[in-house]
């Protein structure tokens, strides 16, 4: 039977070899098999954006990927974006300073989405930021703090690239 497979992939710079069911989503693999519960699951059908991760540097919904599809690929989750255990990524720091999170549920998806966005577009307008996070639902802060944090992080990262 081909309902289980052993996969090798890199998550946050660390290599993992695991046997998984082929129907397992990447999101469940990260959370249940690797214990990386920073990736949140809201809707599990690609609408809420909470489970967004970076796959080879490009943002994607981890609920819409199978773990087996990530064989040989590099995944970055919210746990992997800070430079070290004691330092926040400038975007995380900006979220903290600008009240970009309340309950924190959407935050991992917001951060991963914005990291890719700010890499492609280092000097965005407010409108561009709002479009960039249009695929991420937040039910607490009303987006104001998140947009402010993204714009502040853009300025900081332009002055001192990560």
């Amino acid at each position, binding site marked *: *039977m*081909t*309902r289980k*497979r052993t996969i090798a992939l890199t998550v946050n710079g660390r290599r993992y070899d695991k046997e998984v*069911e*082929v*129907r397992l*989503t990447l999101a*469940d693999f990260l959370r249940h098999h690797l214990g990386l519960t920073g990736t949140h699951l809201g809707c*599990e*059908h*690609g609408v809420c*954006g909470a489970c*967004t991760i970076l*796959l080879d540097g*490009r*943002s*994607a*919904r981890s*609920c*819409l*990927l*199978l773990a*087996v*599809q990530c064989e040989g690929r590099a995944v970055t989750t919210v746990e992997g974006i800070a430079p070290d255990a004691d330092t926040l990524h400038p975007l995380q720091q900006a979220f903290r300073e600008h009240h970009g999170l309340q309950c924190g549920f959407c935050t991992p998806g917001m951060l991963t*989405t914005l990291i*890719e*966005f700010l890499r492609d577009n280092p000097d965005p307008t407010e409108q561009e930021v709002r*479009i*960039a996070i*249009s*695929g991420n639902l937040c039910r607490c802060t009303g987006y104001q703090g998140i947009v402010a944090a993204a714009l502040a992080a853009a300025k900081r990262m332009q002055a001192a690239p990560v």
Partner: protein
Amino acid sequence: MKPPPFEYHDPRTEAEVVGLLARLDNAKLLAGGQSLMPMLNMRYVLPDHVVDLNRVEGLSYIREAGGALEIGAMTRQRDLEFSDLVRRRCPLMHEALAHVGHRQTRNRGTIGGSLCHLDPAAELVAVATACDAVVTVAGPNGRRDLPFAEFPAGFMMPSIAPDEFIIAVRIPLWAAGHGHAFVEFARRHGDFAIVSAAAMLEADGGGHITRASVTVGGVAVAPQRMRDIEAGLAGQTPSPHLFRELCESCRKLEALEDIHAPAAYRQHLAAVLSRRALETAHTRLGSGARR
């Protein structure tokens, strides 16, 4: 919300895919996964086999050849959106892509997947209709070309056999400097449109329309060309009055009625959006040299 059990296949070549589709019963092709994966998670579909196209070689490219853009079926929407070639040579597709889902879904979603899923309101389906695209299909009897006008067989049902799959899409190019516009109305950014409209225009030196393509999406089971509007524009010098008058014919279209909108609202949107698309396409006529 977990996918049902299935067997997973990840072929590397076109021939392997054809072989698997010939052999397997109740198989689903997995392209970008932005429609099939939600359907699996919600168990709307229960396939015995999933054939993943993501590792098949040679299905992702964008090139210009023989007066057309040739696009591999597994080319990501995001690669099309960022393609300079697409922006210069098929600006209608570039404009439409901004409406396709979100950044995260465009990173995965493919042109072949969009066309085969065939949502009535899908932007790339409307673009393929507007551009008279030709789809190349591979199957047990080799490859065949299918004009996009013959591609929809019904609601979300492409006219390809269960043992066939799309490998490429050819988009015939319009003259440099043609006018184009893609407009849509959706409740939220990134949603499928309730109604969309696409327009392309070419004109002679005197401003008379020499070629027109007008498409409305989301109204019926598949996007449709508005042949009467196109015929009414031929040889004319465009004016707001002419556009408005011709687009009124959209109010006679047979229209879907569902939880999102009644038929009369879709007819109204089709008339308004096709007029707006034509007006914008007209203002862009001749701007090709600047792009």
